[in-house]
């Protein structure tokens, strides 16, 4: 009898334990669920969104550019990218210069990549793999498939987590990192004229490339 009651208590405890565990899991999973997508999911969403816009037949090129710009701005971490691009020069900038650089650089990338809108030729994006990098970064490897010929293009996205969300901080196109490439060019510019010359050049280029209205 005593042992039976002991058994019952045990049973009860166990069922409570199960319930608690279940609740705990649910609670835990609801806490996790709204949190960020994994890096491959982020890249998938980004490329799907861009291709969906490119495939729109009824939209004007300008409207497409606007839309793509908005998508890209959501997925790329421009402040981090700007800091990486300017590297050692970054710390020498005052807040105002940092802000204008981020703005101009963002504009420059969207002007440059907005130009590709017209040349869309049924390309598809395939995610071919992903890997973790040092210090928590993540790389997602993709391939742009070109059904009209010309060979596939390898594009790697490097992502970094910013307050729980994965954001793109570099694009490595056919093994050429944009951050490294811009850094190299900007170092040259800053060596002969400093940040003022760089900001002026960026501004002129953006103005000439018909900046997109925000």
């Amino acid at each position, binding site marked *: 009898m005593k042992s039976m009651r002991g058994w019952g208590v045990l049973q009860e405890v166990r069922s409570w334990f199960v319930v608690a565990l279940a609740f705990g899991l649910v609670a835990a999973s609801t806490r996790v669920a709204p949190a960020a997508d994994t890096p491959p999911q982020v890249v998938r969403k980004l490329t799907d969104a861009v291709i969906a816009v490119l495939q729109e037949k009824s939209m004007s090129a300008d409207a497409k550019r606007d839309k793509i710009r908005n998508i890209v701005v959501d997925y790329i971490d421009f402040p981090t990218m700007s800091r*990486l691009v300017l590297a050692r020069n970054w710390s020498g900038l005052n807040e105002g210069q940092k802000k204008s650089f981020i703005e101009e650089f963002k504009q420059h990338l969207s002007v*440059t990549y907005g130009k590709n809108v017209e040349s869309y030729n049924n390309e598809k994006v395939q995610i071919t793999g992903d890997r973790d990098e*040092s210090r928590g970064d993540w790389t997602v490897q993709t391939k742009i498939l070109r059904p009209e010929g010309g060979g596939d293009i390898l594009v790697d996205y490097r992502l970094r987590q910013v307050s729980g969300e994965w954001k793109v901080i570099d694009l490595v196109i056919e093994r050429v*990192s944009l951050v490294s490439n811009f850094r190299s060019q900007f170092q040259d510019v800053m060596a002969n004229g400093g940040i003022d010359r760089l900001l002026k050049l960026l501004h002129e280029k953006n103005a000439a490339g018909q900046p997109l209205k925000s």
Partner: protein
Amino acid sequence: MPKRMSWCGGSTLTVLLLILATPGLAQMEALPSGPPTRAQEVSAAAENDPIESVNRKIFWFNDHLDMYVLEPVAKGWHFVLPDRVETSITNFFYNLRFPIHTLNDLLQGKFKNAGIDVGRFVVNTTVGVAGFFDPATGWGLPMHWEDFGQTLGWWGVGPGPYLVLPILGPSDLRDGGGLIVDSAASITPFFVNTYILLGARAVELVNTRAQYLDVVRKAKESAFDYYTFVRNAYLQRRVGLINDEEPHEDAGQEDLYHPEGK
């Protein structure tokens, strides 16, 4: 970014490359005795370009040659020929690189890739009608670029100083030297008339340039300093091609993605 155009003008070029390559051979990092080390990542500060002023002049010359001769011709070519024909011509010349690719696969111990390259050549030369079509890629025999510069890099030879070669474009001491070995390994049917060979080279050059009309135009438009843009892209791409077997992070990336240190 345009791939390096593989135009080899025969003996003059070889002599030129020898002149360019030999005095600096001692500057090449010593050949490794142990297992191959991985090529260093290109960080902006590490772009080794001691003869930049000379390079810039040759670059300027190449760029003008391109603007006034090659690009207009390539535009006409691209306008006249359907994309499919261009792709076929690309395939044809790529197929002829089979001995170069296979040799360099073997020199790097990439036996599987060597097998793939032999398989590609057999399939594309027969089923692919003398190499004009590329059924091999669809059959699980993908193309991949190998050259002797990559082989040297794989064995741990550093790029040495960056060089801009007349007509051939961006290179470095290691890769420029590699071109000589590769041109010796290429299929050059000596019994074919020289003019026909030259004509074939010209076709290859124009056709290759035609593949990159848009890319080059956009690169020039977006670049802040086109010379630096090309130099950085070339050096990065070469590191990537050398490390293609194991594309993983290493020392230089620490600086690239964490410039603040720590």
